[in-house]
């Protein structure tokens, strides 16, 4: 009895008590209908309005971010394409300088060879001198018919012998002339071959030039699209940035693995240099920090080396340096990197020695003695560690390239992701606002359902009053509806 809540009228029958309370409260609920409706609507507006406003603001921000991203992306693409075009022109210039600089000499050589060939050709065209005039006389004599005169007979025979001799002589001269022409023609061959080779070389150079020109055309086309700020160019640049981002991330992950191996190689021997018992924080040993610092210094030197070699473009100040200063800086970075690689190789050796010493101590402390492994095989890990210690700093130097790609593409990818996130948030807020506003309407309906009895009574009363009054015209009824 004492345990029943204060509102329970009939102990043990809470439902009936609640029903009675509800019936009692119903007139009051009916009386408060209009203010409650107003309150619910106000709450719906109060909660939904700011959400809608926030959603609009987020959408506007997303639009602004997208515009800015687009501008940055196109600017980056324009700069990148401009650089590529400039590089193509540099290549063309180098090609022209290398190949076409010697073009006058090539042309002179070609002309010489052609002249020579023409001269030879002309000489080949020379025919043996025509037969002397007396050949016609001989022909006339040959027409004389033998009439039995011995003198004539002998004369003809003499003429015959002379003519044969002359014929033989002419024939041999003719053959000699042809032999000499053949010799000239034989001499043609090397010139023809040389001519052919020279022309082929010239053609090859021209083809290279044409290929470079085609590449420039393609880049120019891309540049024009970017300059016109077309959607196609933006899409292509965004896809390219996304691809670059993933590739760079993958390569950086691989480099991080390399750095971890490097760290493992030098962390133990660094304790020999800076002490193994010193801690910087609760769990961070000084030797580990020192090893990390060395790795970071190596990466930084590699970065500077790549910058001074103009492979990466992360520091504009380095690129604006004079040529001499740039070269000095490059050599300094290289020498420091080399020194650090040497130090790492030495540390790797020390690591092996420390491990061997520790192993020997543990074996001497153990009850059973381990079998010693001597020989050249035991030297392989040592040599491997030293080699790894020397190579890894140089390998880490190349991290600068994917790092630059990562930084450049991260702006685009991050910007795109931020736009998407902002839009998603805006949609979520808008949806929440919509739900809250409609929830207020639903609650109003539920409230009316709860007080359905007084509402029915109200309707009946209204209908009764309406029945006592004259019927409304169709126009009025339409207006009411």
């Amino acid at each position, binding site marked *: 009895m004492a345990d029943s809540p204060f509102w329970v009228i009939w102990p043990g029958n809470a439902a009936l008590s609640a029903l009675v309370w509800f019936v009692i409260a119903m007139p009051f609920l009916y009386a408060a209908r209009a203010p409650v409706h107003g309150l619910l609507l106000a709450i719906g507006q109060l909660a939904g309005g700011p959400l809608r406003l926030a959603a609009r603001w987020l959408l506007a921000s997303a639009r602004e971010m997208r515009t800015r991203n687009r501008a940055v992306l196109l600017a980056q693409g324009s700069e990148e394409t401009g650089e590529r075009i400039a590089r193509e022109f540099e290549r063309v210039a180098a090609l022209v300088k290398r190949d076409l600089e010697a073009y006058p000499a090539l042309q002179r050589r070609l002309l010489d060879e052609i002249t020579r060939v023409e001269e030879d050709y002309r000489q080949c065209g020379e025919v043996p001198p025509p037969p002397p005039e007396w050949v016609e006389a001989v022909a006339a004599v040959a027409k004389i018919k033998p009439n039995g005169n011995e003198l004539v007979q002998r004369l003809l025979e003499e003429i015959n012998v002379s003519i044969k001799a002359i014929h033989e002589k002419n024939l041999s001269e003719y053959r000699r002339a042809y032999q000499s022409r053949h010799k000239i023609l034989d001499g043609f061959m090397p010139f023809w071959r040389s001519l052919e080779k020279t022309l082929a070389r010239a053609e090859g150079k021209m083809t290279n030039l044409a290929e470079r020109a085609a590449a420039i055309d393609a880049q120019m086309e891309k540049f024009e699209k970017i300059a016109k700020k077309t959607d196609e160019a933006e899409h292509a640049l965004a896809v390219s940035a996304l691809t670059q981002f993933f590739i760079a991330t993958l390569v950086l992950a691989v480099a991080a693995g390399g750095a971890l191996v490097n760290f493992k190689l030098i962390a133990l021997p660094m*304790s*020999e240099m800076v002490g193994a*018992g010193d801690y910087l924080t609760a769990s961070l040993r000084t030797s580990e920090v020192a090893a990390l610092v060395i790795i970071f210094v190596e990466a930084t030197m590699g970065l500077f080396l790549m910058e001074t070699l103009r492979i990466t473009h992360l520091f504009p100040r380095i690129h604006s340096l004079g040529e001499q200063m740039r070269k000095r800086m490059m050599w300094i970075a290289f020498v420091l990197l080399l020194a650090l690689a040497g130090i790492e190789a030495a540390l790797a050796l020390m690591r092996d020695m420390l491990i061997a010493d520790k192993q020997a101590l543990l074996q001497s402390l153990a009850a059973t003695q381990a079998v010693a492994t001597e020989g050249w095989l035991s030297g392989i890990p040592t040599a491997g560690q030293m080699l790894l210690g020397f190579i890894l700093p140089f390998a880490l130097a190349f991290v600068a390239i994917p790092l630059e790609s990562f930084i450049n593409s991260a702006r685009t990818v991050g910007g795109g992701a931020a736009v998407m996130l902002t839009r998603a948030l805006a949609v979520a807020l808008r949806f929440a606002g919509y739900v809250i506003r409609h929830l207020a309407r639903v609650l109003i309906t539920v409230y009316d359902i709860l007080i359905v009895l007084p509402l029915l009574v109200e309707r009946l009363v209204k209908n009764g009053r309406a029945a006592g009054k004259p019927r409304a015209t169709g126009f009025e009824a339409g207006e009411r509806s």
Partner: protein
Amino acid sequence: MRRRAFIVSLPLLGLAAATGCADPRGHAHAVYLLVDTSGTYAEEIGKAQLIVNYLLGSLQPGDSLAVARVRSRSFSEKDIIAKATFDNRPSQANAQKRVMKTQVEAFTSSARGSVNTDITGGLIQGAEFLNETGAGKKTILIFSDMQEELDKATVRSFPIDLKDIRVVAVNVVKLKTDNIDPRRYLGRLEDWHKRVKAAGAREWRVINDIEHLDALLKS
């Protein structure tokens, strides 16, 4: 000029704070091993060598280790057989460990039994040594049957200070009388537990199986 000096001093201050704020000995572990050489327990001394070997293999550069014997009166530096704070350089620390191993081997091969057993004196001496090392973690290992026997002239019935020190009793063998009435053994350990806790020790533990020495240094 001042501005430049300030800018230069900032990283140096940061470095000094980073190195100075961290206690260099805070991570060090100091261990004091008391080896009972009295009566029949002297026969167990071979096992003490195993414990020392385990400690030498487990302690790191920068840690400290002392091995002392428990005799009729043990509150004396003369009872410390070997002690060392291992160098921060691993190679030097290994050399120190080798020397220490040799010293302990020499002791175990030539140890003679004492008439009485002054464990309390050894504890006071051990606490003094550990506090002087300034190590972050301090442990006293008692290799004994925990049966204290004092002569009439020796006074040990006063409160001792073992604040922040772990006390581990190792290889607490049962005496003949314990076998007759095990309550004596359990009571003896309980008394030591109370006394050590009353002295402010961080932990009291008994390890009888020396095959599981890995619990020696773990709190």
